[in-house]
């Protein structure tokens, strides 16, 4: 039982910063996002940029799955659509980044709406598998449309040029991706203070009841798909400029599964869930590899064993979370805050 909720008005319930400390924490995070990159090396910068891209994609999935309850295993492929839209427009037609980025978002949102249509008829497991099928079909289409996408051979993209600067080094990429990631997360936080966001939550809780209350399921479910996919499109566009080379299999099912797993670990339906989840799926394999790296210099063939052991531990951690902390890392985070709030009246 969560006690200690002393809010007495709706305004108080929907304020963005529930505690002054939240504002402080936010400032601290932004500050560290500004300072940290100058302190870490290029490899960790790369990881942080990758983290930013993941956060955007997972935040989109969070809107779709966490808030609206439409479980999707297609986020990876939608990201692929965004990435390929950017790549084709940039290399084939010479579009600059400020054009490819929004166009990728629009394109992905439109295709997302198309693949969201089954959600009007089915939900739960069936929808999950419909999106899974969508993922396979989209990746297959990207591979087969060779005249457009160059098929399995992949596309190379020139670095993005913004305000006359060529975005090439890890640091430059980071300073493009990190603010965008922050922006997209803030947007999703804000979305759930609006009518649309609340409609999403109502649909998640019980879609028939929501419809009876006057929420148009067609409109809002498709809107959820559009927004969720738009996030994927944004992530994909950044992905294209970040990796500068695309092949279709970067976006296959395992990418979608990774995103969904990250969201669950982070905590579905919470603002910080995507961030926690992305940190988890990037940092944990990294940490495991670092531990393995302590052995391999002395005993190189140990790598043959450490690689599968890393896989095992990764899988076990996910299972452990699902069994022992099903609400994800956000729940732990919330518990910490509750503890601080009620101190000294906490056990």
């Amino acid at each position, binding site marked *: 039982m969560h006690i200690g909720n002393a809010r007495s008005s709706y305004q108080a319930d929907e304020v963005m910063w529930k505690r002054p400390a939240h504002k402080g924490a936010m400032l601290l995070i932004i500050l560290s996002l500004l300072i940290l990159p100058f302190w870490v090396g290029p490899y960790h910068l790369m990881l942080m940029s990758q983290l930013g891209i993941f956060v955007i994609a997972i935040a989109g999935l969070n809107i779709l799955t966490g808030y609206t309850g439409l*479980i999707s295993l297609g986020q990876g492929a939608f990201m692929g659509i965004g990435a390929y839209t950017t790549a084709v427009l940039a290399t084939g037609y010479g579009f600059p980044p400020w054009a490819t980025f929004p166009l990728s978002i629009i394109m992905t949102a439109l295709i997302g709406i198309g693949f969201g*249509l*089954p959600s009007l*008829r*089915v939900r*739960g*497991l*069936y*929808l*999950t*598998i*419909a999106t*899974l*099928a*969508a993922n*396979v*079909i989209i990746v*297959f289409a990207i591979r087969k449309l060779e005249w457009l996408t160059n098929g399995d051979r992949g596309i190379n993209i020139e670095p993005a040029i913004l305000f006359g600067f060529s975005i090439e080094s890890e640091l430059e990429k980071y300073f493009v991706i990190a603010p965008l990631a922050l922006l997209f997360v803030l947007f999703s936080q804000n979305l759930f203070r609006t009518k649309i966001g609340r409609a999403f939550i109502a649909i998640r809780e*019980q879609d*028939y*009841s929501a419809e*009876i209350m006057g929420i148009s399921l067609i409109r809002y479910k498709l809107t959820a798909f559009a927004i969720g996919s738009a996030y994927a499109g944004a992530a994909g566009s950044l992905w294209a400029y970040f990796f500068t080379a695309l092949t279709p299999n970067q976006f296959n*099912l395992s990418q979608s*599964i990774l995103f*969904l*797993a990250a969201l*669950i670990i982070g905590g579905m339906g919470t603002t910080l869930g995507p961030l926690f989840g992305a940190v988890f799926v990037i940092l944990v394999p990294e940490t495991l590899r670092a531990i393995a790296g302590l052995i391999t210099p002395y005993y190189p063939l140990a790598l*043959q*064993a450490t*690689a*599968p*052991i*890393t*896989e*095992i531990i*990764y*899988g*076990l951690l*996910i*299972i452990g979370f*699902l*069994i022992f902390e*099903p609400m994800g890392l956000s729940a732990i985070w919330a518990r910490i805050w509750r503890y601080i709030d009620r101190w000294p009246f906490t056990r």
Partner: protein
Amino acid sequence: MNELLYIVEDSLTGLLTGGIYALMAVGMVLVFKATRVVNFAHGTIMMVGTYFFFSFSLLVQQLGLSFWVSVPLALLSTGLLGMFLERVLMRPLLGQSVFSMIMVTVALISVLEGLTILIWTSDAQYPPGLFPLQISFIWEAAVNMQLFWGFVIGLSLFVLISIVLFLTRIGVALRATASDQATAYSMGINVPGVFGMTWMVAAMTGCLAGILLAPLNSLTPSLGHLGLSVLAVIILGGLDSLLGTLIAALLIGWLEAMTGHFLGGDYREVMPYIVVLLIIVIRPYGLFGSKEVERI
């Protein structure tokens, strides 16, 4: 004239392949029926079962016995593995959202694959085939006897499982659990026991499918990925209908063969997914699935 013969031949092959799909899918359907969980790791369990078979076949060979002895041994150990997984991973999640249970099965894939690489390494292995690779002719159409026997085994297993489901106490318990867990509990049915049993039987069918599949492919830790391709079958069949799954399996097998025939081999793997998407849009609960009742 030849073209017609070719279509018949390919159709036959497709239908026979469908029999093996049915065998791969039946375990997933059973688990879904009892627990409402789609076991994404079913293919991986199948792969591990095949490795059991491979190891036992080496062992019995050393003891001078026929490799047929290793089949029941492999089935038994895979069954125990299934039961163990249910007890350790699924049981604690009872009452949680079905969704977390599904994600556990997804995570299980990396755990089992990693363990397999540690134990057996990832070298490709070629376990003995239960049936020799041999081609027979039905009229003019060539038939691979390995596929044929796989089909026969798959079909008989379906009949066997249906008999058990509809005529035995265990079957009644499973069906009762499937239709209403709470009531089943209150009627004194050992629901967790049913779950464990289902996982065991499902794992055993998976192992059998793997043993039949391995001679057609090589045995590597990624054999399990084939399991994902039968998702289309179980969706088309309606997830919880045995008869539906059988028909869907044959249909998908045949459709894949026809795709290969008319469009080329590269379109085969995407075909089932297109079917799934269409089915979900047109007939969401599959061919024979029971429509879920919504209570508001």
